[in-house]
């Protein structure tokens, strides 16, 4: 999944799902059983590659299992791993890359492609595709194009996801709301009011700071958050968006930002401060393990009753431009996106598997993961998916600033006007670098 930023930052992600746990454990056991017997390949010609990712412990355990599987199949390739939480990951990655010592292969997100391409860090994998070490066939919904920038293949998508409105189902039922594909922002406001009045809970947790949601809203209106090299909206646009947010905070439609700040990294939704939250669809997994309620997925509100502005995002695997072992790295990525056993181990931890083989290999049996699959299928069927917004160099810093400044505005330490100005100043600096 493509939780560059906001979501992942707030999240001490613990994607374990009690319900899915059992089936995954079985898959994992199968994997280790078949992996038995292969001694550590101490022959010559053994190559070691370094692999880093961000995420939580649960992801680490799964990834370690997939690596054991890979090493079994390729006994001459050893994989050394390390991982960090999101922000720390990029901090360390940056210093390693600047020192000419980044990992050979690593998890990547859309917001960083141009940034590190500009710094000559990312390997164009298309050469390896041509050499037959990496297959870009069999991807779902056109995802094979996702990591392409200026004709270069800089990242291979591993798990797709999309923005959604994650709702607390019982709360929505009590409030008598049934969101449907094509509902509008006015419907949404009405729904928020109903949640507040009928359940005593805020409607939403604080949508004003989620860059990816604002992007969708802008796209519904023919704009986008970014252009190829700058911001795709004006100060007036953002003033409107945040003025509405300020009102919502004051009137209790949105959760009290003070309380939201204190329960971090827990989400306002699972902490029962709000009835819904805009985030990536696979976050229901996390909320289910975090909170006591039942969580579902609702469509993104629209402006014209049709366009949601949505697209499929994805986490990617990228390689270091000057890696000593491009061939091995390509084989590694190939294995991770195509092998059906890998899909069984990973589940929807990084989003819905991007290749058809893996998608078919792991069919969730629990309601939460089933709902995610159904949600993404419904997007395809409704035909709302569009091309992704470009993410210029510096997009990551803009995203962090957007979240932070929106929070300051909601907490009242900045007026809307000041907040907008501050955001534009900071993003100008970030996008210039």
């Amino acid at each position, binding site marked *: 999944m493509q939780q560059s930023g906001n979501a992942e930052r707030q999240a*001490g*992600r*613990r994607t374990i799902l009690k319900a899915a746990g059992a089936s995954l454990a079985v898959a994992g056991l199968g994997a280790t059983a078949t992996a038995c017997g292969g001694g550590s390949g101490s022959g010559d010609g053994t190559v070691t590659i370094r692999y880093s990712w961000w995420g*939580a*412990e649960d992801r*680490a*355990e799964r990834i*370690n299992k997939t690596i054991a599987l890979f090493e079994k199949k390729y006994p001459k390739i050893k994989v050394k791993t*390390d*991982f*960090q*939480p999101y922000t*720390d990951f990029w901090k*360390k990655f940056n*210093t*390693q890359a*600047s*020192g000419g*010592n980044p990992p050979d292969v690593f998890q990547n997100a859309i917001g960083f492609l141009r940034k590190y391409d500009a710094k000559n860090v990312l390997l164009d994998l298309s050469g390896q595709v041509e050499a037959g070490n990496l297959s870009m066939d069999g991807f779902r919904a056109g995802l094979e194009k996702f990591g392409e920038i200026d004709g270069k293949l800089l990242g291979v998508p591993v798990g797709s996801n999309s923005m959604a409105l994650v709702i607390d189902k019982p709360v929505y039922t009590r409030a008598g709301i049934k969101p449907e594909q094509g509902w509008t922002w006015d419907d949404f406001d009405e729904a928020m009011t109903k949640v507040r009045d009928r359940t005593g809970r805020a409607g939403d947790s604080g949508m004003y700071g989620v860059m990816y949601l604002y992007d969708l809203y802008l796209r519904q209106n023919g704009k986008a958050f970014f252009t190829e090299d700058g911001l795709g909206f004006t100060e007036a646009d953002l003033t409107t968006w945040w003025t509405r947010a300020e009102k919502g905070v004051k009137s209790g439609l949105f959760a009290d930002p003070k309380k939201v700040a204190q329960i971090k*990294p*827990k989400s306002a939704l699972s902490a029962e401060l709000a009835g819904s939250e805009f985030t990536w669809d696979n976050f229901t997994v996390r909320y289910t*393990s*975090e909170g006591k309620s039942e969580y579902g997925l609702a469509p993104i509100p629209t402006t014209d009753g049709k366009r949601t502005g949505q697209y499929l995002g994805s986490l990617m695997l990228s390689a270091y431009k000057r890696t000593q072992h491009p061939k091995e790295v390509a084989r590694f990525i190939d294995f991770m996106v195509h092998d059906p056993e890998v899909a069984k181990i990973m589940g929807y931890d990084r989003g819905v598997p991007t290749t058809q083989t893996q998608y078919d290999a792991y069919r969730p049996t629990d309601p939460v993961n089933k709902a995610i699959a159904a949600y993404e299928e419904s997007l395809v069927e409704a035909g709302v998916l569009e091309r992704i917004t470009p993410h210029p160099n510096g997009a990551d810093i803009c995203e962090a600033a957007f979240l932070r400044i929106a929070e300051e505005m909601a907490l009242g330490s900045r007026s809307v006007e000041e907040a907008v100005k501050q955001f534009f100043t900071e993003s100008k600096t970030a996008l210039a670098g």
Partner: protein
Amino acid sequence: MSAQATDVTPVTDAPPPRSTRAAVLRRGLPGSLAWHLGSLAILAVILYPVLWVIGGSFKESGDIVGSLDLFPGDPITDNYTSLADGIADISISTFFVNSLFLAVGSVIGIVVSCSLTAYAFAKIRFAGRNLLFTLMIGTLLLPYHVLLIPQYVLFRNLDMINTYTPLLLGKYLATEAFFVFLMVQFMRNLPRELDEAARLDGCGHFRIYWSIVLPLCRPALITSAIFTFINSWNDFMGPLIYLNEPGKYTISLGLKMFVDQEGLANYGGMIAMSLVALLPVLAFFLAFQRYLIDGMATSGLKG
């Protein structure tokens, strides 16, 4: 209360002089009661967080923040047993071993390098000594943050990021001016006759340093060693900047990782680990509090 300053007596445990005893009698019971009540009140405030974390580590995760009872009626040990799993395949003991390695390494470095330097300042008359001493004192007041970035760039250029070298090197090069200062103070107060006699006997500086000054300096060395250990154990910024790999993390970083990754799912485990991380420091404190407090009084060392 402040008016009672007349009774200032040495803080050593020597029996109080007669006049003080008389003063105690004169002051009588009410004063004594007030004194003890005041001290106990302060003690309660001071100890509250420590008791809170001890009590909290035996509570259910959900009860820790909100409940006002210090200790749970029905204590559980799940928080501790949950630590046995470690974090992401890394056991908690790995962090402990890493921290221990750094702390012991730092102690050795500080004791050796600072005592050598202090000896030179205190016992050898060499050209430029005053200038160097002034420079050394100057570094006492220098904010570490000025050195943070260039040192980082330096170690990166030397390809030493994600090693313990950046965290240890300074300790072996006597960059901790506090300890040099402490030892200089101490060495200056040693009876002169000893080393002067040794000199007349033809002993070289190294002999004097090794056989005469060092043994006499033991209290100062021990104080420095304990403070170094505790500082290294508590250090957060250094490891945060230099260590990349969870397997190399110190207990401070491990704890931060725990907060980020498990803080919500296993709040009780986080509190239990916080307490466990404090134990070595608390143990050192109980064992050596005399040295710590005396050392503190001597030169205002920061813990």
